[in-house]
């Protein structure tokens, strides 16, 4: 452990420590905050701290995406939901909904931690053929990603636009309000299916 710290420069270490404190503090705030809005804002702090750690690791693109997508879009969505559901409503968040939930969570968390530690010590996960590349040679990783998007993955990148069209059309379909119920709602409701006796229809509409 001491050797590891020795290889890290002082500014890096300082940045890491500050970001780590914010990160853990934010995470605790999410779990322990009584007010849902405060919890969501703590989540913002956590995600921002993660972004800082990404920058420190020279993963600038990831950091930008982290802020834009998670901090920008997702937490704002959380806040919207909290506001829409009613901020005044006191959720009994500190009372277990399910019995023993807390202990299961602790156990699972410990399991994940053990797994991470196990994976961190060995290199037995894959066979040969390491797929990691230099992050910043010959280009910065942002430039490399840009190149990949406009060369190797050009078509997949373009096809995501079809998904956006789907999203728009789907939103229109699902959000449309129907004024009139089914014409035969009232006649067929509760009618045992297959009783071929009475079928009424409004004809001539």
């Amino acid at each position, binding site marked *: 452990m001491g050797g590891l710290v020795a290889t890290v420069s002082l500014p890096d270490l300082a940045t890491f420590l500050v970001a780590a404190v914010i990160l853990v503090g934010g995470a605790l705030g999410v779990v322990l905050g009584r007010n849902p809005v405060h919890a969501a804002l703590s989540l913002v702090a956590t995600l921002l701290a993660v972004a800082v750690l990404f920058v420190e690791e020279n993963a600038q693109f990831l950091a930008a995406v982290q802020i834009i997508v998670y901090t920008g879009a997702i937490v704002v969505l959380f806040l919207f939901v909290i506001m829409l559901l009613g901020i005044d409503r006191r959720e009994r968040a500190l009372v277990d909904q399910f019995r023993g939930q807390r202990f299961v969570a602790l156990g699972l968390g410990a399991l994940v931690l053990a797994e991470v530690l196990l994976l961190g010590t060995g290199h037995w996960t894959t066979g040969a053929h390491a797929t990691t590349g230099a992050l910043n040679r010959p280009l910065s990783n942002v430039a490399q990603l840009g190149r990949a998007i406009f060369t190797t993955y050009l078509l997949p990148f373009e*096809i995501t636009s079809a998904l956006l069209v789907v999203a728009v059309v789907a939103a229109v379909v699902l959000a449309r309000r129907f004024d009139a119920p089914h014409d035969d709602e009232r006649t067929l409701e509760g009618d045992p299916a297959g009783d071929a006796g009475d079928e009424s229809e409004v004809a001539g509409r």
Partner: protein
Amino acid sequence: MTPFAALAPAGLAIPHIDYTALLPELILLGGVLVLIGVSAMTPRRLPTGVYATMTVAIAAAALVASLRLWRDVQNHGAFTTVAHSVDVDGFAVYFLVLVSCILIVAAIIGSGYLRREGIAGCEYYALALISGSGAMLMASANDLIFIFLALEVLSIPLYVMAGFDRRRPTSQEAAIKYFVLGAFSSAVFVYGIALVYGATGSTNLPEIGAFLAHNVITANGVLLAGIALLIVGFSFKVAAVPFHMWTPDVYQGAPTPVTGFMAALAKAGGFAAFLRVFVATFPTLRGDWQPVIWALAALTLVGGAIVALAQRDVKRMLAYSSINHAGFVLIGLQAVTTKGVAASAYYLFAYAFMVLGSFAVVGVVGAKGDRRHDLEAYRGLAARNPVLATVFSVLLLAQAGVPFTTGFFAKFYVIAASVGAHSYALAVVAMASAAIAVFFYLRVVLLMYSTQPADPGDEATTPGPAGGGVATLVRIPVGRLVVQPSIALGLAVSVGVTVVFGVWPQPLIDFTRAATFIFH
């Protein structure tokens, strides 16, 4: 080095894009924008027939482009384009043609349904076209990430279409169920892609295949886990047992023409990518995954057929029958031979028309409100509408695999491919399941021709003055089933393809035989 020099696109090789190779997909996606544009520009809501006509025209244009591409591929050989992310080979173009045909028939059938239910149409067709382009891209995708995106482009419109009749709670339930489980399976699929990428260092299918052909991976746990997750993801999409749980509920709840479209399109797109990824990319590991596919196929065949026996609801019955059909297509995959791939491709072609037609009939019998799907609704159908009963009988018998239909050749070729690959046990399982399946198909046929009335009181209903433009409540007698002209046309096409290529099979068989992979 200044940051600007690093950012300059020196030596950046923008890949060559062969637009004619992408023309069918581009026509569909462009058509979607035209449809939406027209719908937004017109001040009043256009009748659904206008959109249906436009959709048919768009899909027909895609069909023409696909056939031109087919000719090019047959004359000048297969090729890849856009940085090897798209395959333009016989196999891909075969599915481009199939998807175009599915879109045409589905648009024709869908318009009748939408008019009857009084649902505004534009989005229905837009979603269908996007979904179709997704299926096309799945068939021609040569990259795992691309396959994933194409899968989403294929699936997400289908989730929405399943919930298109928002006034019916079962439709909404189907949409939610399909969406949640579909998203879950997509996540599994992506995880599989990540593991395969981690193990092989590429997402490009030929590169993965070449890597596996030239390297022995000593510890291949990650690769096998990735392949397993890919199998799970694909199996979910094509509804193979035990990943079929969503199928009956979604097939039952979705608007009936959507069910037919979904069954035809999702199976075609899903299996196209399934076949390409496994037969063309992972043939070197067949010893590892072939037994899994064997088990999946056997479970799917038997499970689908047996559970279908117990169904009282025709849509659920057809859902389980579609699971049974998926088992047959899996047999072709399990063979891991060119013959097997051709047999699976043929099966998907035959199945698409049978299932589109079958669900069109179910939609007609379901009547306004799309609710009457109990088996009893089919009792005496032959007396009420002999033509409709005949059509449904032909389609059901074709699904059962009766000679002189495409269904017979479909089953024959997959079983022949299975025997050719020495999977005799699986061939026996397949034939046994086909024998079981005959029972539930014939039960519906016999019910339709049964002369015993379900309820004698029905006959007393007097026919009212239908139509006339007056909004009066008219009691429609049981004797009348409205088959709209568009649905009749769609049924004529489905039955025509099923019977004509059943009697005169050579053209379709030749077409299928030429549908081969570029790298194989």
